[in-house]
């Protein structure tokens, strides 16, 4: 395995995590990562050594994602509720954690793809806004705008949900 392959393999867990959240489905996310990696292989000569491999890969993944979304309307997310909130990782009660995660998932699904990507990328990767803008291949101002709008929409969703009696929230 050459140096680039080695670096790329180390980034796959990060790509998967982002893709799973972006697509709302582990299977669809893995398909996206596979497509992105295959594209990256074909375009590997475009990677410049001075650039960040993670940024390069995320840029490719996000482009592939947008292209696939243009080709079809996203299907209803099929996320295993168990995977939404791991009680071991949260301070809330398991039930509350699941409710919060479920609410957040619905809020994220309702966001435009571009806002969802910005919100997820900053949260998951902890990158600066400059880096996030580069990874999504958009100007920094656009990134800020998408991030802030996306978060504001999520806050509204979550606060609306919080106002509901808990016993009613799970009724569908």
């Amino acid at each position, binding site marked *: 395995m050459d140096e680039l392959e080695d670096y790329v393999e180390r980034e796959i867990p990060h790509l998967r995590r982002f893709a799973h*959240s972006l697509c709302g489905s582990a299977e669809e996310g893995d398909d996206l990562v596979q497509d992105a990696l295959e594209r990256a292989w074909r375009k*590997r000569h475009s990677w410049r050594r001075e650039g960040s491999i993670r940024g390069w890969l995320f840029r490719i993944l996000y482009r592939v994602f947008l292209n696939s979304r243009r080709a079809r309307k996203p299907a209803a997310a099929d996320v295993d509720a168990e995977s939404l*909130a791991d009680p071991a990782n949260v301070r809330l009660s398991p039930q509350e954690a699941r409710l919060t995660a479920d609410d957040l998932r619905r809020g994220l699904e309702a966001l435009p793809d571009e806002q969802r990507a910005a919100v997820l990328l900053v949260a998951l990767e902890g990158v600066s806004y400059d880096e996030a803008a580069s990874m999504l291949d958009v100007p920094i101002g656009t990134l800020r705008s998408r991030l802030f709008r996306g978060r504001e929409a999520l806050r509204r969703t979550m606060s609306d949900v919080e106002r509901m009696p808990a016993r009613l929230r799970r009724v569908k």
Partner: protein
Amino acid sequence: MTGMEEIEGGRRWKEELLHLYADGLIRRHPDLAATAERLIAEDAEARRMVEDIRAINRTIVETAPLSPDLPLRLREAFRPHKRPVLPRIGHAAAAVAAALVVGFFAGHLIGASSRTSIPEATIAFLTERQSDPGRVAADAAMAGVQAARAVAEADRLEMGRGLPDFSGAGFTLFDVTRTLAGEGQSLVTAQYRNPESGEIVELAMMPMPQMPVPPQKGAEGGGGRIFWSDGLLAYGLKASEGQPDLGALARLASSDGNWMLTASDTSVPAAQTIEAAPVTAPFPAVGAVPSASSDMPQAIEPVLPEEHRRGS
């Protein structure tokens, strides 16, 4: 700048500062951090905003942990590809078809023995595929089989017109049959003989999706049988007579271009012949087969679908 613009500019600046603070991106800028903390202390809405952003970030991270497991298909994705990857539905097909392949070879080459000698890499491949959520439903899998077959089978069966050339190891082809196995998988069985040593080997080939498996000897009986796959076809080689070096033959078969053509009539796609089931007639032989010995079957009419026969 008008008064409204100044207010708007100030509002945006404040908003950005609070987002940066909530994201922990101004820790290295004490002045900015102090300003943000002052805003939070003075303004309940600012404090709520920072708390909300942090809660959103935390929930996103908690619900999407980094997974140490790396599916094989992703590990292999940033590598050279010998052939186009099957459509997505092919993944379901892969599990089923590969199981058929392995199941067949296990039965074909091991016979009545209850012990199997399926290569570990193949088992790992199957396990990875079959444990993938959503890909175990039988209906989806069968739909995948049909679709994958429609897309990929024709090309693969064209490969069935050729066979590995073992002449470099002194073996010449003397019999070829094609049958159907399992769910309509085409199976080619070829027998080779070494006239000097009297050794005979039997090679079985059938379509196998996706995953190359390097030659591996079966666990049972040492060198009595060997399995491998080039990601396109799955191979099983066994010794029928004597103790030939199966590893050397497998290496020959795995060498690029080390194949010989056994069918000269390419006007009829080999894929069409699977409609006549079961097919047991040998392939039509070609006079120019380099390793063909005198006991190789003479040219035989290719097996045609019913409509072709009626039309002739």
